[in-house]
């Protein structure tokens, strides 16, 4: 690699959709640039896809040193075997980077652990913060142990350090870095051939359906009403939905509520779900695991309704109500309607 052989390398896998960087890609590029600077190293960006002429030059905003451009012929979808093989071979051919960062998206959560397994190295899932220790090891902060605790994961003896980063967690750092842009940096483009493993024919695309644009998106919702295991049953869930409708809020859920089948996976807030930044959050029948509350960000007002006075949620909100939601919520909806 030109000029970079002795410098520490930070690689970011850059996902894009409809000609735009995914929001998590921008966060990763910012984090990757900062980490590369702290290591006095370089930022390399892995991009897979065609028709990216307008997008690739924007990587200069993050002072990316080089782009690894992969354009697999005739492959229009994320193929786990091809992507894993290609990145694994890149590490072998181009020199082993210090770290490879992926977004904790469908693709990233599928690909990153597979690449790590191929290379026999470690992968930290769903990081909400990345730091460096004095030796330059990546400190990967992840929620763990049933969401009751955070853990710092390190991969001290293996390289690359592989991590997926939860979307929405590193927000706020983008603008500060973009202001520093403007220093003209030559962006080296390295074309990397896609590797097609022998068994890749075992996965073939039959059909693609665009998901209907979600009417109200949790991530940008001003108001969120979320329900957890304490809702008890499907009928109870309709109470949550009714309150959300009355408030003009978006319905969110904890993982137990999704597992019970009351809510869709798309509605899950937390470690393996969405990150929300509402002005008002009302959590009902939610115990307050960090697994869920790690997904509630921002400076909005938080309210909890739960029958269990010892629920951890009552330590994390602005207003707590120990009561049966079946009593409180209908009264609240009535109050709102009376005052409308």
């Amino acid at each position, binding site marked *: 690699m030109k000029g970079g052989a002795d410098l520490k390398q930070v690689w970011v896998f850059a996902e894009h959709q409809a000609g735009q960087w*995914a929001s998590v890609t921008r966060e990763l590029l910012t984090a990757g640039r900062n980490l590369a600077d702290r290591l006095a190293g370089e930022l390399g960006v892995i991009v897979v896809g065609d028709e990216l002429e307008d997008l690739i030059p924007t990587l200069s905003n993050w002072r990316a040193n080089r782009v690894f451009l992969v354009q697999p012929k005739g492959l229009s*979808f994320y193929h*786990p075997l091809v992507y*894993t093989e290609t990145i694994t071979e890149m590490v072998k051919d181009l020199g082993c980077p210090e770290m490879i960062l992926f977004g904790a998206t*469908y*693709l990233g*959560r599928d690909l990153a*652990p*597979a690449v*790590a*397994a191929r290379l026999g*190295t*470690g*992968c*930290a*899932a*769903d990081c909400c913060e990345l730091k460096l220790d004095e030796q330059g090891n990546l*400190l990967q902060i992840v929620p*763990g*142990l*049933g969401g*009751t*605790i*955070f*853990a710092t*994961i*390190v*991969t001290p003896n293996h390289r690359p350090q592989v991590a997926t980063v939860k979307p929405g967690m590193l927000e706020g750092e983008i603008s500060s870095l973009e202001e520093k842009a403007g220093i003209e940096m030559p962006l080296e483009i390295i074309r990397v051939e896609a590797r097609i493993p022998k068994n890749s024919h*075992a*996965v*073939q*695309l*039959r059909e*693609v*359906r665009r*998901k209907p644009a979600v009417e109200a998106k949790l991530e940008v919702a001003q108001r969120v009403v979320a329900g957890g295991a304490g809702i008890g049953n499907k009928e109870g869930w309709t109470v949550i939905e009714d309150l959300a409708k009355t408030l003009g809020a978006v319905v969110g859920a904890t*993982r*137990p509520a999704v*597992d019970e*089948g009351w809510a869709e*996976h798309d509605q899950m807030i937390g470690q*393996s779900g969405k990150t929300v930044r509402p002005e008002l959050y009302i959590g009902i029948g939610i*115990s307050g695991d*960090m*697994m869920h509350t790690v997904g509630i960000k921002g400076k909005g007002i*938080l*309210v909890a309704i739960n029958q269990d006075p010892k629920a951890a949620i*009552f*330590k994390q*909100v*602005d207003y707590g*109500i120990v*009561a049966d939601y079946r*009593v*409180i919520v209908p*009264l*609240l909806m009535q*109050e*709102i309607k009376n*005052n409308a």
Partner: protein
Amino acid sequence: MRPLRIAVCVKPVPDPKQSSSFQIDPVSKTLVRKGIPLVINPLDRHALEAGLRLKESAGGNVTVFSMAPPAAEQTLTETLAMGADEAVLLSDLHFAGGDTLATARVLAAGLKKMGDWDLIICGAESFDGGTAQVGSQLAVLQGLPWITRVRHLEREDDAHLLVTLEDEVEQRDLLVQMPLLLTVDSAVNQPRRLSLLGILAARKRKVTTYNFNDLGLDKNTIGLDGSPTQTRELFTLESSKKVEMLTGNPQQIVAELFTKLGL
């Protein structure tokens, strides 16, 4: 259609329904497991259900694998009660403390010991770890293709399955060829409830247990010492919120909340 040899990997986890009583030991910084019953990881019940349905439609057998402490035997008996033909517990102190890759290595060795599989099914992620990594890592170690977070699954022909997955923007139907590994989401099916007859019958059956010596693994690749990732520090985040509890009768509470929120 050709009968299938199906393996289902399951993880015993602390009962999610009791998560409000989870506590962290202030000294060891680990979860206090005492008094919290183990259950099959919720998504793994969907994995087992998927395996059982394929077996019921075309014959074959379903074997359940789990890497867990000996206490998990009872949990595995439950998978026999659901309809699994055999349950294999991979249990040894050498396996303890493994990260996802070290765990996948043990599972891969256990699967290999029992022969070749047409299909391996895992839950997409565990309730407690939640990394969703063991599935694709297990496939990689065996050189198998994999698809994660399958939401719909049907048999296409002797060698193929049709699966549906969903990412952030689209749903994709993929035609996949066995042998391969799938991880499933909760949307894939509704797991069956345990029948009393099933429970009674399962009690008489034995869970097969393999330990370190049975699997022929390199000690340096498994357990805590063989894990590329290490947990350096565990900590809790203290909320900086000043919590105000609203009390009184329901009407008073609602009136106060309404005012506080300025609705």
